[in-house]
């Protein structure tokens, strides 16, 4: 067994927990979250929800605006194409 093996064996060797370990874990699990922390986290959650909702609404509004803009541009494109087409016919007939 070389030194490295020995080191690994020592490091990975099973060690028993300190005597009060189980008691400390159980006490920690049973400890109640202080009410101020709970209150703050509720406010944080509410604030996060407001940010998400506001951001979502703004993004949706932006999306609707861009769709409306594209529809308006398409409408003008169609109308202008038709008027130009009619003008071309008139010009042709005038020749």
């Amino acid at each position: 067994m070389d030194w490295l093996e020995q080191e690994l064996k020592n490091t990975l060797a099973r060690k028993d927990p300190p005597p009060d370990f189980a008691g400390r874990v159980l006490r920690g699990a049973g400890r109640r979250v202080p009410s101020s922390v709970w209150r703050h986290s509720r406010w944080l959650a509410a604030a996060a929800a407001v940010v998400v909702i506001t951001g979502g609404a703004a993004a949706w509004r932006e999306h609707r605006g861009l769709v409306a803009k594209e529809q308006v541009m398409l409408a003008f494109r169609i109308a202008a194409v038709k008027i130009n087409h009619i003008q071309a016919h008139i010009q042709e007939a005038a020749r």
Partner: protein
Amino acid sequence: MTALRPLALLAAAAAVLSAQQLKFNLDYLAAKATDSVDLSLNGATLQFAARFLSSKDADESKVKKMIASLDGIYIRTFEFKDAGAWSPADLEGVRQQLRGAEWSRIVGVKSGQEGENAEIYVRSENKKINGVAILVSGPKELTIVNIVGPVDLDSLASLGGHLGIPKVEITKPK
């Protein structure tokens, strides 16, 4: 509240119909068409869209100015694969409305070769133009445009060369 919902819907529908000067229900043609466009943009939608049109972009700024005074744009276009997919009777309902005293036809073009018809009507009230209707029909095409509000046809035509529309040079007769 639920009892009021139908009334609210009726009121909304009435508002839409009152803004639109021409009523055209040609939905049944969409099934036969290879391409169709249905645009119903009321005044509120136009003003909302105007906020998203850039004043710095030449094309968008032109359109923005034009829609500022408009109350609506309603368009139906159909393109068909074969001729005869639509009949003149489909247009009769629209033409009948355009026979009203407030409408006058300012342009009518008939192309015998291509079998195309194109007409422009203007609607006036108190000697002021408050609407335009454009009807273009061909064997494989049908387009109805109703622009509600004070329309400047020259401005509309001047969009040729913009928005990806080829410019048509109009030479005035000497």
